[in-house]
């Protein structure tokens, strides 16, 4: 049973639940107390000891149901196969038990697997598959490309070679039986395929997901396919969590120069109030204040979408975010983003300002007229856009004034540096007024850009 528990922990890790060795020890101690008899209690026990967030509980619950819906290798079979010197396949003992039950199989001299298939003993077959899976070390499966090889290994371990020979023999002597066997073999292949797929789902999820995320991180945001949007959102949420963990650390810093009288007295009470040790007042650090201006026209829209999602999931790190979206003109979108789900919010923003041809000059003018007061000397202003203003007046003078009012002015451009300044791109003109200009086309670049912005406040 211990072996099964370890396999379950591995499956749990595969499902994205972080199970540390200490937690697995706790779980084993807890299981020792409650026993295996009641599956619901067992499930609750795992949920209590292993999963530490609501998401993890859901993932672990699914993993538990999947894991325990698999037939477990039956105990007596495993023991018997040990006494068999392990030279024969694990399926043999159960086949021997059922060999004489089958009339057809017994009359024809066929191998154990064929007998088992003919007798149609489901439990024997599924336990044989489970044992063969163990022999083929199925829990090691990691990638979907390995499915074929594991199927072959399992079928080999079950003695498919002998079954093929049997079928060949029987085709001449007893065609009807051979046909039945052939059908049973096809069915068996299907069952094994299902078992392997299930194992992949159980054990391979983490690796597959890592691989996929790695690819996704470096894919250009503007050109990802619609079916990947959901995955990308999940990835952005992960990034947000990572940034939160990194930057939501204590924000107190000792400031020398101002004596904290109360704490100094307390610290030196032992010396009759003679201040050997001094305590200083602490100073709270500013949290980042961000004003984001996002171009939502054409190809930049998608990048803006993900950027806004990221910025607005950083509540614990960032004190104050105000977001503005523009193409032809500019509106504030903070409330829409706070109150709605990302999909709905983006839809609403798009219906209000999206898909026009972008006019940076006009949009900057809108911002200066209505919201210039949002910028304080503690604010970081982030402009996200390709700076392609369709040959309209770029109004770089407004950008200069924004830069002067703010702590930092960061420009994120989804286009590669090579094309800045070509065609109607006003990037070089704008760049002179920005503190930082960086390319921002993939999730990874997005993470770095936001991370740098937040880090300047630490």
């Amino acid at each position, binding site marked *: 049973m211990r072996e099964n528990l370890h396999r379950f922990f591995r499956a749990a890790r595969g499902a994205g639940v*972080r199970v540390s060795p200490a937690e697995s020890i*706790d779980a084993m101690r807890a299981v020792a107390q409650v026993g295996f008899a009641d599956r619901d*209690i067992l499930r609750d026990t795992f949920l*209590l000891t292993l999963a*530490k967030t609501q998401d993890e509980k859901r993932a672990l619950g699914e993993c538990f149901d999947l894991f325990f819906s698999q037939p477990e290798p039956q105990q007596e079979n495993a023991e018997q196969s040990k006494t068999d010197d392990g030279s024969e396949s694990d399926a043999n003992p159960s086949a021997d038990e059922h060999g004489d039950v089958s009339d057809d199989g017994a009359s024809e001299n066929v191998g154990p697997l064929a007998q088992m298939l003919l007798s149609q003993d489901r439990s024997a077959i599924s336990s044989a598959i489970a044992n063969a899976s163990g022999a083929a070390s199925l829990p090691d499966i990691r990638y979907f490309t390995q499915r074929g090889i594991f199927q072959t290994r399992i079928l080999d371990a079950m003695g498919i070679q002998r079954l093929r020979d049997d079928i060949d023999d029987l085709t001449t002597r007893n065609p009807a039986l051979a046909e039945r066997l052939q059908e049973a073999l096809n069915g068996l292949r299907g069952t094994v395929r299902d078992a392997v797929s299930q194992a992949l789902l159980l054990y391979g999820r983490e690796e597959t997901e890592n691989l996929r995320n790695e690819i996704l991180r470096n894919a250009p945001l503007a050109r990802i396919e619609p079916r990947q949007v959901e995955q990308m959102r999940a990835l952005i949420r992960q990034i947000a*969590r990572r940034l939160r963990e990194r930057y*939501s650390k204590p924000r107190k810093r000792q400031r020398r120069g101002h004596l904290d009288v109360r704490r100094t007295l307390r610290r030196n*009470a*032992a010396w009759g109030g003679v201040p050997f040790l001094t305590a200083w007042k602490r100073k709270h650090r500013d949290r980042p204040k961000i004003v984001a201006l996002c171009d939502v026209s054409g190809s930049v829209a998608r990048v803006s979408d993900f950027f806004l999602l990221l910025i607005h999931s950083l509540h614990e790190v960032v004190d104050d975010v105000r977001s503005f979206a523009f193409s032809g003109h500019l509106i504030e979108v903070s409330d829409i983003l706070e109150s709605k789900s990302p999909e709905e919010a983006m839809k609403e923003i798009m219906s209000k300002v999206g898909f026009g041809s972008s006019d940076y000059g006009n949009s900057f003018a809108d911002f200066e007229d209505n919201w210039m007061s949002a910028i304080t000397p503690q604010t970081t202003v982030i402009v996200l856009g390709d700076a392609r203003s369709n040959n309209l007046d770029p109004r770089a003078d407004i950008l200069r004034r924004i830069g002067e009012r703010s702590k930092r002015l960061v420009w994120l451009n989804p286009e590669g540096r090579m094309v800045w300044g070509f065609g109607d791109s006003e990037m070089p003109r704008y760049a002179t007024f920005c503190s930082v200009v960086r390319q921002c086309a993939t999730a990874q670049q997005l993470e770095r850009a936001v991370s740098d912005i937040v880090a300047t406040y630490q």
Partner: protein
Amino acid sequence: MADTRPTASIEAVESGLAAQGYIASRQIATAVYLSQQIEKPILVEGPAGVGKTELAKAIAAWRGMKMIRLQCYEGLDEAKALYEWKYAKQLLYTQILKDKLGEVLGGAQSLAAALDQLHTFGDVFFSKEFVEPRPLLQALEQPAGCVLLIDEIDKSDAEFESLLLEILSDFQVTIPELGTVSAVAPPTVILTSNSERDLGDALKRRCLHLHIGFPEQKLEERIVESRVPGISQTLRKQMVGFIHEIRSLDLKKLPSVSEAIDWARVLVLLQASELDHEIVKDTLNVLLKYEADIEAATPQISSFIAKASRQGVFS
């Protein structure tokens, strides 16, 4: 009577808590049972008003133990949570004993001899006498064990979590001047959190993690029954059904169990025999705490009552 022995079974936990008027779901009972068996704290998360704090009180009442409560808030530090030196007393004593010290040391011939004599007194001013125990230390010092409730841990600072780690994993605290104080009897520790911020992994690793959500309809009916005995069965079914309908709305603050109990009390006070549009409209402010929520729910009242009543007929 305090009973420090672990309970025999999950059923015993369930019935023990039920005797105190706390109707526990199977998962809650399992958590309490396991926390006693493997001596681990329970971290309870969930929305406000589902009975997280109530659970600790019920355990304390059931086991006949003292409950020590530490309410967390921003800026809580070890001086308020763990222990503090009674420095006023320390100062006072040094002043009073000044003359005495002079007498004692008067006989010494040299400075070295005086120092030696002083050493023999030991660290009189840093002894147990001068320690003011705060909730965490108090909990360790209870000879009969106790239930330690660390309430709303998510409201405290991240540093405070690290302070808790020692007490949670080993049931001991280290006071630099005195050494390590271990628990006389390991306390039952319950931590609650409203998930206002993510807690550290180190803290979570040391706890059983229990999430209490809104209860199922049957369970909630039993809870209301145990807390508000005067309520008739039909009304109870209706009102719980109604609350479940309300929870399906997209509201700022969903009504939780404590609101359900309050509402049941109000309905009993108003001597309502069943729900109707008038009475729900008049008492909706017991359930919903925001004007916008009430506005959102009001147009639905009639259809919700109808649905809740229908459920009552078939179940």
